[in-house]
Each structure stands twice: as C-alpha cells, then as structure tokens.
C-alpha cells in the first residue's frame, strides 16, 4: 500500500467519523419531539393553511390542509418529494401522500409519495416521474404524466392504469365496484397456455379466461366480462377477467363501444366521466374504475354518454 493510499484511507476514515458526528448533531437538531413536521410550503402570494391566511411560507405539519386562491403553492417535503398545488385547489398533506380535495396538484420527485383523489391512488412508477392530477366535479379524476409514468390504483390497491406521458386519462370510480364489470381492448396473446391482453387505454395487462379465446389469439379484440378476484393471474397480468363477450376488431379501428357507445357502459357502471371527449377512443373498465383517454390533455370536454351497455 502506498503512502498516498494510506493517507487516503485515513482521510476516508476521518471523514466517515466526521460525517457520523455531523449527522448526530443534525439529528439532534430536529423539531420538538412528537412534532410531525413534513416539510415547507412556499408561495409567492398568500394561501390558506388550516383556514388561516398565510403569506410567503410556512412549516408543513402532518395532516395540514392547504388551500390556494389565485396563486399556487409549492410544498417541499422532507422526503424529497415536491408537490405543487395549483390555483383554486385544496389538499390535505401527509408524510407519504396528499389527498386532493379540489383543483389540481402536480407531483415531482415523488419516490414513495402518492396522491389520493376520490378513492384512487396515483403514484409515480419511478422517482423521476412527474405528473399532474386534476379533480373535476363533472368528469372525475384526470391524471397526466409529464415525465415518466404514473400508476393508478383503486381503493383495493389494484392497478387500474399506467398513465404514460402525452396520454392523459380520466377516471371515474364506480359505485360499489361496478359489480366487477370489466371491459378491455387489446391484442390477445398466448402466454404459456394463458391468454393475456394489454388494454390499449389503461396499459394494464390482464389475463382473460373463457371459451373461444384460442381462435382470437393474436387478434385485436374488445373483451367484456367480470373480474374474478379469487383467481391468481399469470405472471405480468394484474387480474383475471372472465370474458362473457368478445368482439373482434380491425387493427387501428376503435371498438364499437368507443366514445359515446362505450360511455354508456362506463357511465352506467361508473356514473361519471360525463365531461370528457372520448370520441373514437376506447373506454376501459378495470378494477371497478372506468378509464378513458382525454383528448387535448386535461382541458378536454365533451360527452361520455350512450345507451349501449356492456354485452354479457
């Protein structure tokens, strides 16, 4: 071992000791015991923190409610996540998640951090993902991934969609789970004797079971049926759907139930999404949540109604 390497090793040892000592000093300088400080909220103007008007910045405690008016607030959380609450929004903040009660929120650097909105959980797939979640009284929850991808889970923590950049989705949780009704669209793939399908709208892979699937192998179909919560899906799939109706689709052609037609199913089961434009776009129902692509980002508007119900 050379003299230089010995010196370097000693330096590293000293540095480690110093870092440890420094850490203990910093750890000792934590807020008073039992004080659940989770971060700092900042704004250029004023905002409301637990119903009190505050200008500039404030310490963010566990369970604090923040409400914005004309301006926006930025919440820098101690776990590294950054949450922006856009104008006319309201959210309740916790150490590991934020409950969006009104308006829009944006999540950055959110490893381990997630949003909750109307029973749905939205979390980044990776720490580098950035996304925006919007609540609309008429259309439900809208999720847009700005970078990376976001995962949307239902109240039973079941994956209902992966939202990719440039492909915002709108969600409407169904009343009492929509009786397990499911509707997916995609190409049927045989995987070790099991048939799986990745839904084109939600990017969720499901296993489908039922009769007559063999002849649909490799084809693009729209499958309707019921979720089987007792069955264990094959690897890569998140749930098993027992198919009651299957419709063969031409490549690049929207399913018959797209837009207004399928909207009826979604609206009937989910009771929402009425303000979205989904014309020519499939509407999926997975895990008791109706999901549809949003045209023109989060600013989409239009109809989601129809009379056709899911065939069984």
């Amino acid at each position, binding site marked *: 071992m050379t003299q230089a390497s010995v010196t370097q090793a000693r330096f*590293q040892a000293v*540095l*480690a000791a*110093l*870092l*440890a000592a*420094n*850490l203990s*000093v*910093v750890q*000792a*300088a*934590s*807020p*008073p015991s039992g*004080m659940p*400080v989770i971060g*700092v909220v*900042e704004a*250029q103007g004023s905002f409301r*923190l*637990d*119903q*009190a*008007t*505050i*200008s*500039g*910045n*404030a*310490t963010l*405690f566990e369970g604090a409610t923040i409400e914005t008016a004309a301006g926006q607030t*930025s919440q*820098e959380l*101690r776990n*590294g996540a950054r949450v922006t609450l856009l104008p006319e929004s309201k959210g309740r903040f916790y150490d590991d998640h934020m409950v969006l009660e009104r308006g829009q929120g944006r999540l950055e650097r959110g*490893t*381990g951090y*997630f949003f909750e909105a109307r029973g749905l959980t939205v*979390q*980044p*797939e*990776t*720490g*580098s993902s950035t996304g925006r979640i919007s609540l609309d009284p008429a259309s439900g929850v809208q999720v847009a991934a700005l970078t*990376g991808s976001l*995962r949307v*889970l239902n109240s039973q923590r079941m*994956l209902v969609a992966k939202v990719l950049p440039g492909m915002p989705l709108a969600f409407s949780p169904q009343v009492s789970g929509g009786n397990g009704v499911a509707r997916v669209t995609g190409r049927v793939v045989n995987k070790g004797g099991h048939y799986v399908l990745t839904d084109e709208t939600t990017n969720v*892979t499901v296993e489908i079971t039922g009769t007559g699937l063999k002849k649909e192998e490799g084809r693009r179909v729209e499958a309707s049926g019921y979720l089987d919560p007792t069955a264990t*899906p094959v*690897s*890569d*799939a*998140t749930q098993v759907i027992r198919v009651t109706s299957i419709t063969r689709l031409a490549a690049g052609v929207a399913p018959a139930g797209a837009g207004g037609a399928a909207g009826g199913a979604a609206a009937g089961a989910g009771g929402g999404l009425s303000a979205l434009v989904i014309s020519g776009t499939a509407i999926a129902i997975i895990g008791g949540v109706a999901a549809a692509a949003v045209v023109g980002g989060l600013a989409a508007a239009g109809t989601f109604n129809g009379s056709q119900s899911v065939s069984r």
Partner: protein
Amino acid sequence: MEARGNSTRKPATPGAATPDAEGGKFPMDRPPQIDRLTPAGRWAQASSWALTAVRLGLFLAAVCGILRLAAAEIEFRDDTPATVLRAASIGNSEYRERLAELQPEQAREVLRQAALADPRAASVWISLGLLEERLGERRLAETRGLKKRGLEKPSFEKRGLEGRGAAEPGAEKRGGEKRNVEKHDVEKYDVEKHDVEKRDVEQIAVPDAVAGASSGDFGLAREAFETAVRVDHQYAPAWALANFCFRQADPECFWRAAVRAAARAPALADPAQVNLTDLRPLLDLAGRMEPAPLAVLDRLSLPERNPREGTRADTLAEGVTAWRAAHMEKAYLDDLIGQNRWEDAVMVARRVASHRDAANTARLDDFVTRLLVAGRAGAAIDLWNRYAGFAVLDPARGLSLTNGDFASAPREAGFDWRLGLPASETVSASGRQPSGGIEPRWTPALVEFRFPGGELEQTELAEQWLPLRAGTFRLRFEYLTRDLPSPTGIRWEFAGREATAAARAEARAEAPPFEPSERWREAQWKFSAASQGVAPLRLIYRREPGTERARGTLLLRRVRLEVL
C-alpha cells in the same frame, strides 16, 4: 433666441437710433439694433442650451427606462424561463425570484445575484434561506444514506424495490428505464457525494464561517433569514425566521423571531379589522414549541408583563401593546378550542376572564357552553364564576340557579337561561327553529312566551344547566297565563346526565302541566338529582292529547331553587 440681460450696448453714435429716453421705444423709421452678446451672455446662453439638452436627455432616458420596464413586464408575464430571464436582466428582484423558481438548477446563483443586486429585498433573502435549507435537507438525507450504507454506493436494485409501486406486478419489467435511472443516479451520487465531502471538510476547517456551520447549508439558510429580518422589519421575514428556527429546533432563535413576528402581525395591524384566525399559525407554531399555553402567551406578549425575557426581548417586542396581547390570548383560546385541548384552553380562558372585559363575554360564554356539552362541569363552573357577573355557583352550598329573577337578559349560553335552542344545538348549530315557533321575549324581571297556535307539538321554551349535588330540590316560580286553555301543556322537566339512556330515562323528572292562571300565581315543584353533576332544567311545551295547539301567552318570573 433673444439675448438676455448682460449685454452692453455700443456707444451711441450721432444719428443712430436710440430708444426714447422716456418711453424706451425705438423711433418708427428705423429698425431696432440687436446688441452683440458679451462673454457672460454667451456663457449664459450656452448654459441654457446645455440645461435643455440635459433635460431632454433625462426625459429620453426616462422614456427608455419606462419602455424597458414595460418590455420586461411583458416578458415576465409570459412566464417562461427564457422570457423571465430576459426580464430579470433589468435587475428586478421579483423577476429573479421567479426565474429561480423556473430554473431550479440555477436557483441558488440567481437568488444570490438578486440579493447582491438588491440587498434590501427581504423576499429574496427569504427565498435564498428556503433554498439553502432545502439543500441542507437533501444533503442531510444523503448523509443519512451514506451512513446507512457505510459510505458505499447505494444499491439501486434495492432502492427500486423500496418504492410502493415496486411491489406491484410488472415492476420487474422496467429494466431499461431502471438502468437509465441507475446510471443517472450513480452519476448524481458521485457528484453529490463529492460535494458533501467537500462541504464537510470546509465546515470543519472554517467552523466560524457561518453561524451553525455544523449543520452545513442550514447555517447559510439561517444567515439569509436573519438578513431578511435585518433589512425588513415587517412580519414576513420574522415569520419565516421563526418557522426556520422551529424546524431547526432552536428555541432561543425561535422565540426571538416569534416575538418579533407577534409584534408585527398583520392580523392586528388594523384595529378595525382584527383577524384572530390569521394569528393562529404563529400561535400554533409557538404552542408546538412550548406546550404550556400560558408560557406561550407570556413569551409572545408584552415585555413588561414578562420581565424574565430580559432587555433583548423587550427591545424586540417593542410595539406589542396590551391590546395586542389581549387579542393574542383570544386567538389562542380559539386555537386551543379548535384543537380540543380543553385543559389548556381553560387555562387561557381564565387569563382572558381575568381582564374583566365585557368584549370577551360572548367568547367565554361560548366556551363554557362547550365545556358543559363536553361534560367538563367543574371547569365550566370555575370559569363561569370568574367572569359571568352573576351570583357565584356553588352546588355544595345549594347555589345552583343563575339569573332566576330575570334581572338581566338571558345570555343564551353558559349557565344562564336559553330561551330558544338547547345548549347542544347552540354548539352544533343545528339550524333548528328556536322554540319551535314560540316567540320568547325578555323584559326586566320576567320572560314572556307567545304561543301562536302553530308551534311544534313539543318544544323547549327555556333551559338552564344546573350544577347540583345529589339530593332533592324544590323549584319555586311565579307565572301568569293569558288565553291558554287547561291543560296548558307547559311544564318543567329535569333531565339527568346519566351515561346510559335507561339511566337517563329513570333520572328524568317531569312536573305536572301548569294550570291556567290569569293572575300571577306562585307554584313549586320538587325533583331529585341522583348524583352530583350538571344537568339541564327545562321548561317545555307538549300538546296534551285531545287539545289543540296552544294559542296564548305565558309570563314567568322569580324562579328560585331550594335544597331540601
């Protein structure tokens, strides 16, 4: 241009035209001769031109400046990094703050430049402080990571599995993206680790370079916050510093800043528009730092009321008046009630009550009512006796009734009469119609109830919460009725406060209905309290079977309670 004064005329020559000596006019047949300027005159003329040029230049400069500001404002409103950068080039600190937000990677440098350009811009210092603190937090997190990993490079395989989503099916498929993340994170790690090590060494080498150097960026943050407080004596910098000191668990720093903030709270800036709600964040923060509520108020209130603070605090708290302190107490009382911190709220309420200020009565009445509904009778009696202004309540001595002679208007709260909604509904704001449509009216020494004939079939007319010991009591009262048929349906009721519905039903006592009496009539009713406590005595109306709803008037006076 006409030449001014200091010119000299040529010597008059024969035949030359000269102004008329008296009238100062030239002869009409010759034109006036303009004199040549002397050096002094030429100097004056040049000065005049120069002054005009300077004025013109200043005007043009001002116009250019205005145009530049307008252009910058237009650029700023576009709110993109490029446009805000151009706007910030004029040196406006607000623009630079926004630029720092839009370009987080350059935020530190941008804010430092802004601070240098305008050292009196407190908002820039605050932003800088927040940024340094944020960097400190990240560095701290990184340091924790280093310690946890024994100064090893982090295992991103493991890190990837730590996230919630990783447990979800399909997480293992993100290999490509994960590899990118790993590469990026490793590079970032190398840079940051080097940065951490470098900073630590620097801190050790120059421990006095910044205050609190042991906490690295936090020391720089503190300096920035304190600079903001120095350059701006308003509320915002003090509030920001107080928050920072709280987060750093530095009580001395916190209280210094909090006292300063309390003295400058905008919620109390205008006596005509006091907003106690907006004081709550500061009080809440102080309450988290100091659990004892009175100590919080002592620290934040007048220096002369708390000489232990010393001269330093006295100076900082200059401007905090007794008026402000009193409002602070009220705001804190509201805050504690909102947090259901009953014992602490009682302590603050006692202090509020000690001021004997009529303006506090409604707030204290409300609090006593809340205590009663919450079953905290002892605290309610103690507080009531301190401020209410009625005869002292002492159930042990049989002093249980308040305002029985109706000498003062019922307060509709606390232990006084309620001539409308019962206490529970007063607190819960049920929106129910008071007295079921019956109109109670107080006049000195009596109350009057008018029954319109359309009232509810059963409703409370009056209620008072009685603090009683266990025993038997006699209620004596005088009443008079007009146009009320027999039976009137009006009676007293004593409802127990027992825990179970069955026990309450057993403890419930009800008097026979009042007999109609067109003249004042004295009546009495005996009832028993099974246990010591506070329970409501009610005057109720219940339509008797076979009768129509009452239409008439009841007058009530001289209600007394005796222990038997």
